[in-house]
């Protein structure tokens, strides 16, 4: 793995490798000495064009626990406003001699463009997509898969894939990079995916995605082995996507009443941060089947695993197309 730009790029074998290694990395979290020497001497830069304390700290810890040198560069408000192009910004950072660039950007496709500019300039740094616009957030999908796999293994210890399982992804799919990455990864793992949203929040062309779609959450819930609730932004109301928050909650929220419709043992996920009371009720967030806190804990282990996959071996020469 040279870069990690998209969950859709990961095969089942690669995904399994990442998740298995994350299990090993997770043990480090419980140790008194939270350190592994594997990435000693490597430099990782977190280049975040969007605020995100949670994801950025997660990457920072992941790198540091692997003994890498990690620095955070907040580029929020730079580039466009200062007239410096994105290309200039990333080449400047990379020319300091970084081994990996973890990049979060508000525009879809930015990390892929960065890879193109690096290759054209002969820069070898690995690029890790920490979330690009509404396009993808591959490490989120990996930590969701990690958490779900552990959950399913509690009743089926030998489960390696999600074959035969139904996962419902509910909410603002159109604007969700978490949804796109999860659809790709869940499908790779063999799950059946159902997207549930009001028609205005379904992406254009969703008919060609390898998923089922529904506008009726109540019909889908009893069939689901896991429900992934997406964050809905109140700002979407000003775009006229739905009339009021209360109408959204009645139609698409995981309310206390809806909890009863879930199968016993069904998992509840949310990528956070939650709008308690809007897309997810407090009861659901704290329910027995809720994996939300586990998801948060899984983030560091999964990101350690990914950083190791990218940086833990020999430096390969720049190879166009090798991502």
């Amino acid at each position, binding site marked *: *793995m040279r870069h990690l730009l998209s969950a859709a790029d990961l095969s089942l074998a690669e995904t399994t*490798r990442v998740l298995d*290694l994350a299990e*090993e990395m997770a*043990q480090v979290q419980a*140790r*008194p*000495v939270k*350190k*592994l*020497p*594997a990435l000693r001497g490597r430099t990782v830069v977190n280049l975040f064009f969007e605020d995100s304390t949670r994801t950025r700290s997660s990457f920072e810890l992941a790198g540091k626990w*692997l003994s890498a040198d990690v620095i955070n560069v907040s580029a929020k408000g730079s580039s466009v406003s200062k007239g410096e192009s994105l290309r200039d910004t990333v080449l400047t950072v990379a020319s300091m001699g970084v081994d990996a660039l973890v990049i979060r950007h508000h525009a879809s496709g930015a990390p892929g463009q960065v890879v193109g500019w690096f290759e054209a300039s002969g820069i070898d740094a690995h690029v890790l997509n920490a979330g690009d616009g509404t396009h993808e957030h591959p490490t989120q999908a990996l930590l969701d898969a990690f958490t779900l796999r552990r959950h399913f293994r509690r009743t089926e210890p030998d489960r390696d894939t999600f074959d035969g399982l139904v996962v419902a992804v509910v909410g603002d799919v159109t604007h969700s990079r978490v949804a796109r990455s999860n659809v790709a990864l869940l499908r790779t793992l063999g799950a059946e995916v159902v997207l549930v949203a009001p028609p205005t929040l379904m992406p254009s062309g969703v008919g060609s995605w390898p998923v089922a779609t529904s506008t009726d959450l109540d019909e889908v819930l009893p069939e689901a082995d896991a429900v992934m609730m997406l964050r809905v932004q109140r700002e979407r109301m000003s775009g006229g996507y739905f009339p009021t928050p209360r109408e959204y909650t009645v139609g698409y929220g995981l309310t206390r009443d809806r909890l009863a419709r879930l199968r016993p043992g069904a998992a509840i996920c949310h990528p956070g941060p939650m709008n308690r009371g809007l897309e997810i009720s407090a009861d659901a967030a704290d329910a027995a089947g809720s994996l939300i806190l586990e998801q948060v804990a899984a983030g560091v282990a999964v990101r350690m695993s990914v950083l*190791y*996959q*990218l940086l*833990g*071996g*020999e*430096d*390969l020469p720049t190879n166009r197309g090798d991502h």
Partner: protein
Amino acid sequence: MAETGTAASRLVMDADQIARACARMAHQVLEANRGAAGLVVLGIPTRGVALAERLAAAMTEVEGVPIPVGSLDITLYRDDLRRHPTRAVGRSRLPAGVDDAVVVLVDDVLFSGRTVRAALDALGDLGRPRAVRLAVLVDRGHRELPVRADHVGKNLPTRSDERVSVRLAEVDGVNEVTITAGPGESGDEPGRAS
């Protein structure tokens, strides 16, 4: 020494010899430790784990108390990570804490000593054992670091370009140790120097 296998490889330990070596080492460990107190047996994947389980089972039978046994993967502590493509990492399963324990590291072949060095580093990050002992099935010489085994199944002088292969029933279906002549990697598992 019986001679079987291909023309280029010869058998140096058969199933019987391996079994007796394991039994002997189990007794030696208990003797050196004056009993089972504080013992934690950790095998280094892959075949070290099978050997560790055999030793622990033998010790458990002698002592009548269960001896904690597990695995310690050292891949992330290797000193040659950056010379190869990203290596797969094995499982670490610690049956008990290592603080103040007498940790018995178990591996199949002792060669350069670098694997043991990595294992000591890994143990250091896990806690502070009271003591660390090393039990290996085969010591083939050619140490590159000042490491020695406390308990050895068989001392096997080798040329550095020969290849020592340990096969155990739990992993390979048979129990035997063979030497293959000619240029090759040191150690049996791909790319793993012991």
